[in-house]
């Protein structure tokens, strides 16, 4: 470096991916709006969908490029012990923890709505035929197992056993994908819909947002798997691994809340 730095902070160069992803997000928001009210904006529903899809594509492309840049920068630093400055590692860790905290608060809003509405109504409402506990119980086992496999993978990583790490990560997102398939199956066979009063509202919004987070977590795990097979990370330096594992555990904990309060307790009280 031509310029002397007396600090370890990372000061990135100007970047097009952040503002461009804002433009993508902005177009997507407008596209979504047009989809909700196509006639008010004098356009056909398909045009509205197209605008939304274009916005999403641009956003996804920018996120992909931004992520690639992060990987590139991580590789440039290397994964040897001590190659990542302590302050940088700390910043990343703090950042991920606070991000998860904000997600927890988002779910808290929906859980609050659930407790409020289930408390003020007969629960489950009389016209609702609740789901059997079989599939949700299987789903609970799937996610709990995936929590074990991701921890196993982390131990293998710390011991330097890369092939076991990869196997365990593969298993983790496989469990995630099976979970999502079960969730789809459940949605298709449920006798109530999103618009069937407060029961349908709280059930689908809570499990739906959770499912979306499982989806995002699975993608993070797939990227992790890919990066592992490309030789990234070491026994000591694997922040992205840990961030993904934290996120996965968070998704796991939310599910346990859902299983207990949305599936199990109302059913237990009713029958």
């Amino acid at each position: 470096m031509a310029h002397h730095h007396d600090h370890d902070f990372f000061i990135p160069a100007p970047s097009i991916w952040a503002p461009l992803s804002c433009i993508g997000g902005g177009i997507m928001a407008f596209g979504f709006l047009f989809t909700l009210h196509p006639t008010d904006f004098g356009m056909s529903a398909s045009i509205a969908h197209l605008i939304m899809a274009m916005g999403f594509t641009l956003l996804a492309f920018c996120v992909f490029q931004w992520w690639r840049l992060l990987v590139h920068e991580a590789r440039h630093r290397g994964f040897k012990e001590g190659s990542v400055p302590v302050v940088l590692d700390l910043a990343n860790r703090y950042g991920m923890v606070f991000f998860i905290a904000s997600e927890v608060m988002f779910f808290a809003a929906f859980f609050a709505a659930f407790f409020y509405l289930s408390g003020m109504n007969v629960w489950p409402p009389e016209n609702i035929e609740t789901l059997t506990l079989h599939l949700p119980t299987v789903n609970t086992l799937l996610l709990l197992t995936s929590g074990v496999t991701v921890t196993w993978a982390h131990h293998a990583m710390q011991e330097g056993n890369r092939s076991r790490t990869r196997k365990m990560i593969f298993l983790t997102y496989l469990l995630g994908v099976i979970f999502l398939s079960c969730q789809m199956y459940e949605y298709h066979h449920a006798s109530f819909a999103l618009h069937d009063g407060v029961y349908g509202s709280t059930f689908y919004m809570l499990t739906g947002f959770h499912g979306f987070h499982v989806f995002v977590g699975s993608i993070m795990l797939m990227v992790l798997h890919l990066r592992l097979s490309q030789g990234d990370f070491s026994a000591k330096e694997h922040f992205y691994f840990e961030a993904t594992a934290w996120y996965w555990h968070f998704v796991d904990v939310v599910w346990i809340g859902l299983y207990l309060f949305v599936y199990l307790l109302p059913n237990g009280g009713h029958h």
Partner: protein
Amino acid sequence: MSAEAISDNHGHHDHAPSKKGFMYYLTTTNHKDIGKMYLLTALNFFIIGGLFAMFIRAELAEAGYQLLNHPFSVGPFTFSFSGEFFNQMTAMHATFMIFFAIIPAFIGLGNFFVPIMIGSPDMAFPRLNNWSFWILPFSGLLMLLSFFVPGGAPGAGWTSYPPLTSAAYSPGPGMDMWILGIHLAGASSILGSINFIVTTLNMRAPGMTLFKMPLFVWSMLVTAWLQLIATPVLAGAVTMLLTDRNFGTSFFNMAGGGDPVLYQHIFWFYSHPAVYIMILPGFGIISEVIATFSRKPLFGYITMVWAIIGIAVLGCLVWAHHMFTVGMDPRAQMMFMAMTFLIGVPTGIKVFNWLATMWEGVLEFTTSMKFAIAFVGLFTIGGLSGIVCAAAPVDYQIHDTYYVVAHIHYVFFAGSFLSIMAGVYYWFPKMFGRLMSEKMGSVHFWLTFIFMNVTFFPMHFLGLMGMPRRIPDYNPVFSDLNLLCSIGAFGLGATQILLIINAFWSAKHGKLAGSNPWGGHTLEWQVSSPPPEHNFEKIPVVK
């Protein structure tokens, strides 16, 4: 473009702004550029929100309809406003002032000064910082364009309570534009808050322990925590509103077993802390300004820090004081009332500490200091009227009257606005290297001070007399005081032109400031004005 190419600017403090085009500002990751862009955005939306207020005051200047319900011409233009337009004005005045003027103004000052004040070269996540800024224009655009869609802008108040905002009563796209706008602004706010927290916890210079941080940094840190905890809850509330309106859910719909009061709970869980998001940074600024211009260290620094933390924690537990009239359990009302009263204690500590800082100090009445002193006096009025509003039995009488409008404007205008002004006059020379005109600043201050009291003080009486808020017509007994409010409001609006002229003129032609025009002791005064690209040639060591 490489990191070196940018850091080559070191040493030349003249930043040759002519070279910085749109692409530079679009892609910049520099916290000082982003801070300035936030401030400029806040100014723009302040003007728009201010014009809405002028419309409201013009309509309310006399009893009967002034602008509504009969077409009138100004030159070649013919205007025709329905009563619904008045509703849109009140809703969007608050929306723009809260989400697009006050909050971005504080975020802008924080972006520029927090890294410098802790001895850091930038924010923790500079690219994310860029994202947090550039999503805002789209959010603002959604809000602004809602005026031009069928059904117009949302007209159900900035609080957007269902059932007024349900698909049945607000069928047009405007309401959904508000919701999506809040989503984008909320995402900006959450990611920005993560950036502030990580910056403050992780990037302090050697020796800058937490309890050596300037009060402004503390206030931004605690504000960021509030944003991180509360904003996702607002996102949840408006998401439920969106799905209720468009996808058939029943969260707030009685027919499906839902409850509109649930919305109020979730909404105020964000929006009461939001009041602190809009006032704590002001407390921080006032603490810096008063200490500097009293030539004394801040009195009771440690208690000031704990008072901010105490206000923030209590502030998360009082939301239902906005809902005393919905028929809550009286025991719950008692609890929320008592918790709200408690906030008076840490707030009182702050006010007395500011007074004690000035006591026997060598006071220097710069424009910034004038705004700060006015803040201490007038914000206290807003704090005291808040305690009046928080007393449940009193609130039954004054709920939804002009008393509440008076209260919140003594918080947001006498509080947030005056503190932002104190901050702008204080830090402008650091940001632009030139001093603002003190003469024009003094005129700006005195006119603002007089007109804001003329505008907002009579509203207390109007409220106690029973004048309801958000209604375009009123009983003629309220006429005289309303006319007074309107005269004050037009004066107040016109006065702000002085601020704009002063800022833009001084940025080019003001007296050169030098690095420390006020004799300040915090780190930003130890670097040149404007500061070098990455703030410090050498990371400072704090003793």
